[in-house]
């Protein structure tokens, strides 16, 4: 059965509801389904209710006071550590307690006076329900309750510690911006805004997760992106119904078209420049609060072999680099399998001189090439994993120990042949040369399958495995786009920015495969000047 059918069955089985919503509807999706418990008239009742709802949390700070000549009882509630206390003191408590001298006749008037004249913070909003109040408190706002009022006021006082903007760890480049996303959603959206002063850049905010209520932003540019694409992606994101999406990875796996495919169907990136570039191509980005990785979709097979740096370097260099990466992807997937096939089945294909030196090197090695290759590849994966997990200073030791012990000692002991060490090393280097980590992982995984195929059937097995990968790719869809675009279906125009990266002045059009509504990114005349 097709992977897609299975995944659709799976989705139906677990009851993914698919609320049909317009992609411009920005109302809070969870607010509608909350039980509507309105606020109590008395401050004391509200405070009690909140304390109860939060189980008398130790970090819940409640400050009761009375305001103005009429001595109206008020109280603020907030979570310690999430808020900026100096801001609360200066802009909320001080003006209310010291300089409030308006004569107020009703609670409603009190609210509007507070909103319009007293509270000097830059964002305030009215809330009417208890759940809304609790949500605001938990997201770092301060909620101000006023006696006899039907509404409370939520004041934005977010002030938690967040990491500074740093260089992306997973996608370092030589030339180009060095800023990477952080865990803070607002910082990330601000970084996008700073790159694109485009009024049509839309950032739709949703709270996803029953308990986590994590902020998720779907970003796109109106006028470029195809509306159906946004509609579909929004539908998929809103269909997530779980306690908490723990990060962008979870979201990615939930909304991807197929969960059986080893290939990344959604691109993840830490780079704002990559996101803004993709948005301008007519794609959609998803940012998740608490995760420095943004998701970009739809993508195709070739996206995983491109790096943002391709656009910053000279086009010849970029073209060569892309060719190199294509070769690297091939080597990383097939080289050990080819080694096995040639050694075990087709000795005749190796040129005689080389065959002699390989045979000489393999003299005394007790295992067949298959066992040798598997042992070395697994050792390499172990080394890589160990180096990742260990603290940085020890991680380097692992590299040295691994390199020396596995390389030198294993050869000296006659366990593996030096040729095998060369093959494994080239494979590892090639897989590190790929710009997308998740893509490199899937190639690494497939490598073992292909090695098995080579062990059973030699070259015939490798070509069958190659065909299977191809068949899998042509059957994959990513948000309605065949994953093999622009190779098949053939889109000639896209070949300008595929393996070849044509000079910038020739890249006049946005990629046709995502069906952008506005196709030109330069003025239309043929004269590039």
């Amino acid at each position, binding site marked *: 059965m097709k992977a897609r059918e299975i995944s659709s069955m799976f989705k139906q089985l677990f009851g993914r509801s698919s609320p049909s919503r317009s992609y411009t509807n920005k109302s809070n999706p969870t607010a509608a389904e909350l039980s509507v418990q309105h606020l109590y008239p008395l401050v004391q009742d509200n405070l009690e209710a909140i304390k109860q709802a939060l189980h008398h949390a130790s970090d819940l700070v409640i400050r009761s006071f009375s305001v103005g000549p009429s001595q109206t009882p008020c109280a603020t509630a907030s979570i310690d550590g999430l808020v900026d206390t100096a801001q609360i003191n200066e802009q909320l408590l001080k003006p209310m307690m010291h300089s409030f001298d308006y004569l107020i006749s009703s609670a409603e008037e009190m609210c509007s006076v507070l909103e319009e004249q007293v509270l000097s913070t830059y964002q305030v909003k009215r809330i009417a329900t208890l759940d809304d109040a609790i949500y605001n408190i938990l997201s770092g706002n301060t909620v101000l309750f006023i006696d006899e009022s039907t509404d409370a006021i939520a004041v934005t006082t977010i002030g938690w510690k967040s990491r500074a903007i740093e260089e992306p760890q997973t996608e370092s480049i030589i030339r180009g911006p060095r800023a990477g996303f952080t865990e803070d959603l607002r910082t990330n959206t601000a970084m996008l805004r700073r790159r694109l002063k485009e009024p049509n850049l839309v950032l739709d905010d949703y709270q996803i997760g029953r308990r986590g209520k994590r902020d998720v932003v779907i970003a796109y540019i109106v006028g470029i992106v195809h509306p159906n694409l946004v509609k579909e992606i929004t539908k998929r994101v809103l269909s997530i119904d779980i306690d908490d999406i723990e990060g962008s990875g979870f979201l990615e796996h939930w909304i991807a078209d197929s969960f059986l495919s080893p290939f990344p169907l959604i691109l993840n990136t830490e780079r704002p420049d990559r996101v803004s570039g993709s948005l301008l191509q007519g794609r959609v980005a998803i940012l998740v609060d608490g995760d420095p990785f943004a998701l970009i979709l739809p993508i195709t097979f070739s996206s995983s072999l491109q790096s943002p740096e391709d656009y910053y370097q000279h086009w010849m260099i970029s073209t060569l680099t892309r060719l190199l990466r294509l070769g690297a992807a091939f080597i990383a997937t097939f080289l050990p399998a080819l080694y096995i096939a040639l050694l075990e089945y087709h000795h005749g*294909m190796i040129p005689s001189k080389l065959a002699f030196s390989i045979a000489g090197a393999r003299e005394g090695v007790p295992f067949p090439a298959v066992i040798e290759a598997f042992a070395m590849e697994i050792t390499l994966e172990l080394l890589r994993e160990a180096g990742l997990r260990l603290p940085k200073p020890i991680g380097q030791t692992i590299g040295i120990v691994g390199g020396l012990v596995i390389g030198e000692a294993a050869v000296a002991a006659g366990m593996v042949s030096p040729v095998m060490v060369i093959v494994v090393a080239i494979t590892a280097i090639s897989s590190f040369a790929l710009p997308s980590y998740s893509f490199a992982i899937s190639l690494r995984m497939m490598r073992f399958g292909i090695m098995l195929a080579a062990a059973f059937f030699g070259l015939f097995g490798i070509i069958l495995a190659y065909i299977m990968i191809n068949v899998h790719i042509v059957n994959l869809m990513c948000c309605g786009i065949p994953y093999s675009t622009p190779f098949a279906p053939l889109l000639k125009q896209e070949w300008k920015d595929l393996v070849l990266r044509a000079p910038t002045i020739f890249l006049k059009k946005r990629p046709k495969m995502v069906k952008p509504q506005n196709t030109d990114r330069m003025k239309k005349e043929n004269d590039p000047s």
Partner: protein
Amino acid sequence: MKYFEYGDPKVSALDICVTVASMIIGVGVLNLPRELAKVTKSSDGWISILIAGLLAMIAAFLLAKIAVHFSKQGYFAYTAAAVTKPVAYVITLLLSFYFLSYCSYEIRAIANISKQYLFERTPVEVIALGFFLVVIYAVSGSRAGIIRLNLLTIPFIFGITFVVLSFSLTKLSVVDLKPCFISSITELASGVKASIFSLLGFEVVLLYITMMHKPQLAPKAAAIGVALPIIMSLAIYIVCVGVFSEFALQEVSNPAVELAKEMQIPGEFFERFESIFFTIWIVTVYTTTIMAFDCCIYTLRSMFKKIKHMPAIYMLSPIIFWLSMFPRDVNSFAKMGDYISYLGVGIAVITPMIIYLFAKIRGVKSDAL
């Protein structure tokens, strides 16, 4: 759950062109030079290929032209309207059987040649089964995927053929190509027969036309799709005669593959290039096989709408595999190939034309604009 598709799932004229070409290029081309060398003299086989090619192109053009008339309702519905339902059942079943046996033939052929060039000891059955399982994997995917697969593979096939032919040129002796025009008409005619058989496969346009966005472009696309393999066969044939000479060529079992053995690559990085050439050739035989299988399912399901895609595959797979293991030796296998070709010419090329005449007489509704 309906899958979101805002891209166009229909296939273009280019897709059909490539599909026809990649259906035709199978094991036939590998053997054609020898068949021609057996029946014609000197290098006169090229006349046969050209005549056969011209005939095939005309036939493909006509078939596609006819197919335009049922580009929406499909072949079976059209046939049923033209020559009554029972007859249509028989004709479509035969067509289905033709594709089924075509598929079996390709599987056996690939297993035979693989055994010759890649394995010595592995039994044919095991090789065929491995290949067939991968075929089933592709067929259980989407039909549009199969068409996309053709587009991915055809450049490699033409690329590797070009490499082999151009590196073989150093071994080519022009003397072997001369004299010209010495074969008799009857010899040329049997050459035409052999060439036509290796050019069969353009019938797929009858079925895949229903997926086309603009069916009226199909005739031209199909004709060009046939032209590509003709050019390829011509080039392979001439180089083969030049390299092996006509007399030796009669004894060479897979001339195109042997050509890769003879050629010399500068740098001597590879020896026995024929293994690599053949390994890549497997891909095109593979696409031919999956399309034959898919067409078989297509025709069956057009008659029996209740059968689902996957059960049809499970049902047909054992039959195909059994049929592919049926021929005992090389001779009976060659005979099987001949029977399939006769069946193909009869049921997939001539019959649709006759049906078209009936449909014209009875005024069957046409989908053409």
